[in-house]
């Protein structure tokens, strides 16, 4: 008799799909029901993910055979600490964004609310499927489910949104197709689609050109989905023209799951030695990540729209994860996984701030922000400040510690390029975040703060966003501090068990 808790593996997966169906049933005038379905189902799956994470950490990995079919015939779900961790990150962020999103969706796209929530839940379900599945082709299907939902979400936006969604679709399809092509090669060589099987067969077969080609194609395809430099072109437009809530849902989690696939493929399915030695794939990943870090930061500095700036900053932050994977060492993996969590929380918080600003000011142009913004929305800006400090990577916020492990990993391999990139990018982050902070906290016209400005400030009324929006923003901001202080606990108890034996 199997332990009933192992059913959590499928328990994570069911609520979003079921919720998507339920949400779609509501008529437009009852769209609050769709919202409720989204919140409840994402909350349930969040709880299930946390439970699954606890189970996987304490009891060890769960291999769940769907319908009782043994692999390689049947599809298996793998809930090990790594997968459960990513599930928890993904579902947690979505949950908070859903709570936050009701009034935003109501304001921005009221009559598309029902399909919006339905598509968002499908996206969530697809991403969770990618994380949990132990089957290569099943992963492709989930990849396309999440992508299709993602295209639809991005397309619900302003007039330009369909164009960016179309571009996203073309590039996303190329990425997914490359992945499928890679799977074809692996399948031809190993005769199995089960990741575990493949992992066992590959060392016996020895390396063959087809296996290598398969690995490279998979990494290429996933790199595109992950917006790894130089394949990041689709990301900035897609994030910018989508609605605020759609961006807040996709940005923190979309690229992370692709990063997860990268970690799975490079370290679990293949021997890390293989990835590192036969072809310098890990190095290539690391250097592309490093280039992305610098390039994304520079582009972020050049932007005037807050949302677009955050989009480019995502390109740069994804680079950190790729860099950690590229180090192909325990510290690198710790840094990458920890940064996935930290960046998801930071980005979710920042995009929620962006949404709050849009709600109250009607725009998110940096040159039009001034200190009245802060007086009108002090708590929102406080959350922004904490998240910005964390993005820069100053202790004791969470962002510092992922960088710390990456620094340790770079030293371990004496990779001075990575080290330099980490240092430089933090400084570039300072530039684009303090540009905003200076504007909202200080008088920006070059004159001293005097009696006149004090009178001016006294005339500005506080108009913070409603509690349902403020609470998730502040909660995520505060959790950055908690995550920072608790990082050792997370690393030792959750991330250490994820490290594959070969590293």
């Amino acid at each position, binding site marked *: 008799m199997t332990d009933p808790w192992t059913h959590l593996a499928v328990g994570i997966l069911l609520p979003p799909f079921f919720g998507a169906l339920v949400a779609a049933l509501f008529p437009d005038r009852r769209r609050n029901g769709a919202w409720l379905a989204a919140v409840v189902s994402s909350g349930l799956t969040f709880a299930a993910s946390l439970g699954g994470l606890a189970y996987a950490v304490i009891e060890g990995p769960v291999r769940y055979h769907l319908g009782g079919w043994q692999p390689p015939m049947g599809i298996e779900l793998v809930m090990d600490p790594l997968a459960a961790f990513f599930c928890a990150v993904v579902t947690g962020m979505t949950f908070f964004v859903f709570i936050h999103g009701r009034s935003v969706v109501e304001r921005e796209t009221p009559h598309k609310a029902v399909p919006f929530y339905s598509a968002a839940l499908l996206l969530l379900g697809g991403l969770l499927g990618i994380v949990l599945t132990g089957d290569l082709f099943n992963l492709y299907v989930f990849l396309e489910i999440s992508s299709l939902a993602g295209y639809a979400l991005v397309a619900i936006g302003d007039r330009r949104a369909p164009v960016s969604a179309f571009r996203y*679709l073309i590039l996303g399809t190329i990425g997914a*197709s490359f992945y499928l092509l890679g799977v074809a090669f692996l399948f031809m060589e190993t005769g199995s689609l089960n990741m575990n099987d493949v992992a066992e067969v590959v060392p016996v077969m020895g390396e063959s050109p087809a296996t290598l080609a398969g690995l490279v194609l998979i990494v290429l395809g996933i790199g595109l989905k992950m917006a790894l430099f130089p394949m990041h072109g689709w990301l900035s437009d897609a994030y910018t023209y989508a609605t605020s809530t759609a961006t807040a849902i996709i940005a923190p989690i979309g690229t992370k799951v692709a990063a997860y696939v990268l970690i799975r493929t490079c370290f679990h399915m293949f021997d890390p030695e293989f990835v590192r030695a036969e072809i310098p794939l890990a190095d290539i990943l690391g250097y592309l990540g490093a280039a992305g870090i610098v390039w994304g930061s520079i582009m972020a500095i050049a932007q005037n729209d807050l949302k677009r700036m955050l989009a480019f900053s995502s390109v740069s932050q994804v680079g950190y994860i790729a860099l950690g994977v590229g180090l192909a060492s325990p510290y690198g993996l710790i840094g990458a996984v920890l940064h996935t969590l930290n960046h998801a929380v930071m980005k979710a918080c920042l995009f929620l701030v962006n949404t709050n600003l849009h709600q109250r000011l009607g725009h998110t142009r940096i040159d039009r922000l001034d200190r009245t913004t802060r007086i009108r929305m002090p708590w929102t800006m406080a959350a922004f400040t904490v998240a910005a400090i964390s993005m820069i990577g100053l202790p004791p916020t969470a962002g510092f510690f992922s960088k710390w492990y990456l620094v340790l990993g770079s030293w371990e391999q004496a990779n001075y390029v990575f080290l330099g990139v980490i240092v430089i990018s933090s400084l570039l982050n300072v530039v684009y975040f303090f540009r905003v902070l200076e504007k909202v906290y200080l008088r920006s016209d070059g004159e001293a703060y005097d009696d006149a400005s004090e009178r001016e400030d006294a005339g500005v009324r506080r108009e913070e966003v409603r509690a349902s929006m403020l609470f998730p923003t502040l909660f995520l901001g505060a959790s950055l501090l908690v995550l920072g202080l608790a990082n050792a606990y997370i690393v030792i108890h959750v991330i250490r068990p994820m490290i594959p034996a070969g590293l």
Partner: protein
Amino acid sequence: MIELLHDYYAYWAIMLLLVIGLYGMLIKKNLMKKVIGMVIFQNSIILLFVAAAFKWDATVPVLDAAHPTENVANYLNPLPHTLMLTAIVVGVAIVGVAFALLIAIYRNFGTLEEPELMERMRGE
């Protein structure tokens, strides 16, 4: 060389399709032509699976007295073909979404030519 071409002609054809599809997606300026390229690209991968699963002198895995089951080599591996059914469905769904987006784009901007589109978007 001739042998290589002859023995693997199916793969060469698939590769050609792959390249044509990629070319269409990345280089063509018309969005509809991009979709056409995308379909060619996806189908070339489906064909690759199908071609890889094919064997001379083997038959579909349906029990047949003429092909004794002791000799498994007589049967094709059915898995890739069934997988490709799923992949075709996925492909159709993508084309559907792509068409929906194209209609929305045409409604908003009145063109599907990328350079014109860029110009009109910049005017926003």
